[in-house]
């Protein structure tokens, strides 16, 4: 999981990070202990929501931004359940 490595390196350089991923990769990400992770219940290749679902995509991004701002420790995980369609 490339983004796990990137998140860790950026964080060590003082840049706060959040990964927003389809939860199909939950186990692969979890063992990397990334600083912050938002998990979405969507299919591979569409982690922010269905094509054309602008409201859902924005809601997912907002969840990521909230976690970026409010997390207090590494390994923070947030699950979102906005409908895919």
């Amino acid at each position, binding site marked *: *999981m*490339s*983004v*796990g*490595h*990137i*998140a*860790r*390196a*950026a*964080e060590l*350089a*003082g*840049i*706060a*990070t*959040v*990964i*927003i*991923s*389809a*939860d*199909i*990769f*939950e*186990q*692969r990400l*979890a*063992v*990397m*202990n990334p*600083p912050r992770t938002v998990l979405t*219940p*969507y*299919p*591979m*290749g*569409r*982690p*922010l*929501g*269905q*094509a*054309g679902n*602008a409201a859902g*995509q*924005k809601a997912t*991004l*907002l969840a*990521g*931004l909230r976690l*970026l*701002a409010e*997390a*207090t*420790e*590494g*390994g923070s995980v947030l699950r979102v359940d906005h409908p*895919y*369609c």
Partner: protein
Amino acid sequence: MTESGETFTQFKDSFLYGTRPDLNFKFLKNLTEEEAAVFLQQLLHKVGNLLDSGDATEIINHVRDGQRHGYRNPTQWAYEDKPFVPLNKPLPEATIGLMTSTGHFVDGEDPEPFGVEAMSQDEAVSRISDFLRVAPDLSRIPTDITPEALRVRHGGYDIRGSLADRNVALALDRMNELAAEGEIGRFANPAYSFVGAAAQTRLKNKTLPEWVQVFQEAQLDGLILVPV
């Protein structure tokens, strides 16, 4: 075994860069014969339901559940420590970057992997093992780029969602909206993309020190990372 001599195991494995490459269903190779048989039987049953309901939701959820099961085993990359820094300013004042592993690039700025001009998506799929042996290239994506000027190519996932709407992962439009609405101080320009199917050790040792410097020069306060 079929009349052609193909076993069910060979059939289910053929979706992973085999005779029937399909990146949505390559996970079938990670399932046992019994698991794959149950997945396919249930998929067909739900297709039958769709004929009457007209609602594909349970099919979408079934595919996602199958993918989740197929990718349930962790990779070798495991860490005990948990690096963490808080966001150093409120979101409405923060500069937020976006990076995706989707393989997007600007038309005219093709990274030309392995020196191949205008590599097709099909060739990228067929050469996935080559991509996994090299460090990824960083593509800079202007945040005001038109959809017509954006390209995507990645041999590791089904790019049809990204072709239909870049915002399924590379959410340029949504991030621009969030900046305009004041949810964040600034959407850092450019955004970044690369092909996530890459040599992970080379990414860590060679690429990341350079990329972190790029992030620092862009004065990012926060970075959203979106894998596919």
